[in-house]
């Protein structure tokens, strides 16, 4: 009876793991696809329009400020920002799913990673 219960528990745990994997994969896929669409749409403008030195040295931050004008480089910049934000969503989704599964160990580990990355970005970026 106990052995049957253990096998059943393990099967359920595996099923939960598969659901966790499927949700994280969905978040990653959504991030990559939306970024890819924006980059693909803006690529012809980047390649064939405004080939000035100024346009080529436009940073993501500067391009984002042109978003209200619907500048194609601003759309590409949004794609880049979505791409960079995807691992953040990957971590937050993992933390949320570990929390829902009452997996305290991996919730703590995931949140630790978030804190370390935030500290790293603040400490290293703060000096410049």
């Amino acid at each position: 009876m106990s052995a049957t219960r253990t096998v059943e528990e393990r099967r359920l745990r595996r099923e939960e793991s598969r659901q966790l994997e499927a949700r994280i994969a969905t978040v990653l896929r959504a991030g990559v696809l939306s970024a890819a669409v924006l980059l693909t749409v803006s690529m012809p403008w980047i390649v064939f329009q405004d080939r000035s030195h100024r346009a080529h040295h436009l940073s993501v931050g500067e391009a984002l400020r042109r978003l209200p004008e619907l500048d194609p480089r601003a759309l590409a910049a949004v794609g880049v920002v979505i791409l960079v934000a995807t691992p953040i969503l990957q971590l937050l989704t993992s933390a949320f799913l570990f929390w829902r599964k009452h997996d305290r160990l991996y919730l703590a580990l995931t949140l630790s990673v978030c804190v370390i990355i935030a500290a790293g970005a603040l400490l290293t970026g703060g000096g410049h």
Partner: protein
Amino acid sequence: MNFSPGFELAILLGAVAAGVLGALMGLGGGVLIIPMLTALGVDIRHAIAASIVAVIATSCGAASSYVRDGLANIRIGIFLCVATTTGALFGAGLNGVLPVRMLFLVFAAVLAWSGVVMYRKRGRSVTRTEPAEDAPGGRLRLAGRFYDLSLGRERRYAPQRPALGFSLMLGAGTVSGLLGIGSGALKVPAMDVAMDLPIKVSTATSNFMIGITGLASALVYLQRGQVLVSLVAPIALGVTAGAAVGTRILPKAAATTIRAWFVVVLAVVVGQMLYRGVTG
């Protein structure tokens, strides 16, 4: 930067190759992208910033398939990310304190040793004793399973020596933060050699991790305005397409082939490290 008409096309094609290689080998692709961009006349600071975004694109593109297919082990990835991110933070703090040229040489020696061990392990992954069906996988619950298309059956694995793997990842993160290099070349051997994971799981889990490790650097480069839209857009697009191709190859490829290719890539990285160690 010299913008010839074929500039974007050249970097797009180079990025596709980097994406395929990155998804297959668990690397960020910096090993290809940075030399390619600098050869095209791109400033090294912009090349490194673009390479970091490429790492994230490769990681997200590849990991979305590997996580769904059960090739990437999320628990191993999160557990080891604690070590790599801590190490990277520590390494960034040590910047300027330790002699960088010496570190490049030590790093080259460590990678060369990893390459030799990985080469000697070729073929072993297929004959390795698999854990029992109901193996608990230890307190960290790191054991996993995946369907190996090249073998046509499910494979189970239980990582060995997680503490050693964690320590090596701490070292990998420190070296990465200190030298400003991607650590995929260190992550895969640490998982393969120290934790005795199947090579496909090592490369897939490395892909899951490299985007998270690269995140802190990417945020810094974005803040500094070093990520140029016209440079990073074709790279991100090319790498994403390349990663999609790489993720279709890895599940079907034989473990011995992946291992052999990884050893070749390690040899290239060792050459780059030796060059930087000798010339400064």
